[in-house]
């Protein structure tokens, strides 16, 4: 298997495609999750609204029952009060009724005598045909009926039997009438009126409360409105529930709007309290929340993308910097390796390999006579063997370093190479060539002085490029010759030699 080198470009493209894929997957996943949530929410709405409506209908029905019971209790107290007053005249009776109305906050409070004559605070009238409970003859216990006031409001009539005398007549009953609109106002205590509607209905589906049960049902007969909007079986059950004073619920659709209503019988009244909520209201609210969440998710996603992009950019930049530094380090290393290959480790000057490279480079030019200023200096350390033998190799190495320093210090404009244990060469071109003679003279004087100082002594010989020279070696041979001569001369001056 062939291993391919991964370039920066490949890395960047891979990173970009990967990031884009992750981003797309993230977005699609978010959208899918949102839609799934909305779908699941829709399915839950019906169940939630039914539960919600059941609780609401039940609470309101109980409120009405409590109201009725409270009124019955108050009426019984009122009868007790009037009984004890021993009323003799109609004026006294009207005054007492007025006082009772005021004290007990009763709306229409009235007494009925044995002839079905009704006594209220302001009027006395024959009421046999007007009040349903009087048509039934004898009154047994608490009686609840609905009064349809000719053309206007509808009222709840609560009657109880009484048994006392007033104005010489036998009072057989008392009753109150409560405007159903007042009951509706009492029930309108929830702060959710905008989304829910309720109404009181008679057994035949007629609206008693005058409240609109949403735009679809309005204040019309609820049976008429729902007929045809639900399966016949459901509708008949709905009607039967009203007739039998049972609780239940009904879902129906008007146009594109799905409505949910729950109904609860109001005890002993023959009424059904119906609460309706449009599924769309809950759905819209939840949709609104979902939209808000989706919007927040989008913002979060955008923010994440921006942060990701910024971090990716930073990472790429850092990767480039690291790569560049790595490249530079490799180049440095390479340079070092190359330097190590051409540098003498002991002295730091060029080694024999470096000299050979220089020789290879110069020889063609010499052959082609392309160089006119070239000289070579051959240097040899005097007494190295003696030092090695007497003082050890460490001292010998130091002597070599001293010699190298000396050579390098004098031949500043030349290339210095160590080509043997105690041998150095210096190639001189350009300014090094031009100043060669002066430098050599000074060097030789120094060498001679060093004999006396017992410092490093280096014998040198040199040769200048001759037109007949074909290669550097030709110069080297002449320089070697001169160096040996110089070595002998220095020996005579006292310099140590190999011998």
């Amino acid at each position: 298997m062939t291993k391919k080198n991964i370039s920066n470009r490949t890395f960047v493209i891979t990173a970009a495609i990967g990031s884009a894929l992750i981003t797309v997957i993230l977005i699609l996943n978010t959208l899918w999750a949102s839609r799934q949530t909305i779908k699941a929410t829709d399915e839950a709405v019906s169940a939630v609204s039914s539960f919600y409506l059941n609780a609401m209908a039940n609470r309101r029905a109980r409120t009405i029952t409590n109201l009725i019971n409270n009124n019955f209790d108050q009426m019984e107290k009122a009868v007790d009060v009037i009984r004890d007053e021993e009323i003799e005249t109609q004026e006294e009776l009207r005054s007492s009724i007025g006082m009772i109305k005021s004290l007990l906050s009763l709306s229409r409070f009235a007494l009925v005598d044995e002839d079905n004559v009704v006594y209220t605070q302001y009027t006395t009238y024959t009421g046999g045909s007007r009040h349903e409970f009087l048509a039934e003859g004898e009154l047994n216990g608490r009686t609840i009926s609905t009064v349809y006031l000719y053309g206007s409001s509808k009222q709840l009539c609560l009657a109880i039997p009484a048994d006392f005398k007033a104005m010489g007549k036998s009072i057989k009953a008392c009753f109150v009438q409560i405007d159903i609109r007042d009951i509706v106002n009492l029930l309108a205590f929830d702060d959710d009126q905008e989304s829910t509607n309720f109404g009181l209905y008679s057994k035949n589906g007629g609206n008693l409360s005058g409240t609109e049960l949403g735009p679809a049902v309005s204040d019309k007969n609820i049976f008429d409105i729902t007929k045809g909007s639900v399966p016949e079986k459901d509708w008949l059950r709905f009607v039967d529930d009203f007739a039998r004073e049972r609780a239940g619920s009904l879902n129906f659709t008007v146009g594109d709007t799905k409505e949910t209503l729950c109904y609860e019988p109001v005890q002993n009244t023959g009424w059904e309290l119906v609460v309706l909520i449009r599924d769309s209201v809950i759905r819209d609210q939840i949709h609104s929340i979902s939209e808000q969440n989706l919007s927040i998710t989008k913002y979060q996603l955008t923010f994440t993308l921006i942060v990701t992009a910024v971090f990716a950019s930073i990472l790429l930049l850092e990767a480039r910097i690291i790569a560049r530094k790595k490249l530079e380090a490799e180049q440095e290393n390479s340079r070092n390796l190359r330097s190590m290959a051409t540098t003498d480790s002991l002295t730091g000057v060029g080694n024999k390999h470096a000299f050979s490279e220089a020789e290879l480079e110069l020889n063609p030019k010499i052959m082609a006579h392309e160089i006119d200023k070239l000289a070579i200096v051959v240097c040899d350390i005097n007494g190295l063997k003696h030092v090695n033998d007497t003082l050890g190799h460490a001292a010998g190495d130091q002597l070599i370093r001293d010699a190298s320093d000396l050579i390098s210090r004098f031949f500043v404009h030349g290339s210095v190479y160590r080509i043997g244990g105690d041998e150095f060469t210096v190639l001189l071109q350009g300014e090094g060539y031009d100043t060669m003679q002066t430098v050599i003279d000074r060097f030789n004087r120094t060498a001679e002085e060093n004999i006396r100082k017992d410092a490093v002594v280096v014998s040198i010989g040199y040769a200048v490029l001759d037109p007949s020279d074909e290669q550097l070696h030709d110069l080297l041979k002449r320089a070697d010759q001169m160096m040996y001569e110089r070595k002998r001369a220095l020996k005579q001056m006292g310099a140590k030699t190999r011998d």
Partner: protein
Amino acid sequence: MIRKRILPLLAVSVMTIAAAALLSACGSLGKGQGKPADVTEQKATDTDSAALQAVHFVHRLDDYRPKKDHYNFYFTYKTVHPWWDAVALGMEDAQRQYLENGITVTYEYMAPPAASAEDQTARLLQAKEAGYDVIGVDVADEAIISPLLDELSDSGCKVMTFSSSDASEGCKRIAYVGNTHNYEDGALLTEALCKKLDYKGKIAILVGSKGAPCHEDRAKGAMDTIATYPDMEIVAVEYDMDSVDIAYDLTAKILADHPDLDGLVCCNMSNPVGAAKAVTEKGSNAVIVGMDHDREALHYLKDGVIYCLGVQDCYSIGFNTLQVAVMIADGNLPGELYPEKTDETTTIIYQKDASTMLEMLYGDIS
């Protein structure tokens, strides 16, 4: 959205109609002598809104400022019956409005279980001694009661008549508020029947209480109308004494005697209920026209058993009766403030109006 736009328009339309009707009603109170119902105009009400125009529930007291802060009246009418219960509701509306203005109006509104001139006489004689500000009477029998009203007036009582029956011509009662066109109502209903029968056939007439002016006048209007069509024949005239059961029995008997009966004219509230019941049971095709807004009668109308009903505006009668009573109590005589006879409307309604009327009057109960 459309519904939201239409509903306010509908509401405005209904309110406009109601307001116009109210203005019309108020206008009639101050125009002096009342006029009989305009037959042509009433025929024009043969529209979908006829039921809405038949009864006016929205009333406000006029600008008259009562001189006292408390009035006490006595009213008596023919018999305990839902028709007068509707009148009572109009009275109570006026009483509440006076109370809101700081004026207390108390009254008695009494009737016997069955129409009786004797009972009414006894009640009036008792009221005469009680010192009421005004005594109002729905005359049970004009021949018997009218002289008594004169006697009450002579003794210093302020007497008025109201609702369905006025006293006889020349009676000293101060004013009358109610139906002033019973004859025309009878004629109008009969005309509708005749037209339905293509002006031929056998007709029976059911009347209410003997001597009750409103019933007698309607019966006379019916007879006179039928007499104008040579191919029509009156086969029976019977009195049910304001009893549904008697009306049923009488109709059953008439149908037995005249199985080919083509039509029935009913002159009071109980007549059409008993007649419709008998016609239904006997399987007769007789066409029924009748008076008033009895709930059963409206259902028969809705079901097509009764052809049409003449509906009187009882609520307005009650409201206006109390207003006129206050003015009379203050010593005002008919003239600028109120007419001697305050006319109230009668509207003929048909099958298509029945549901609306049932909803308006009885809350759509079945």
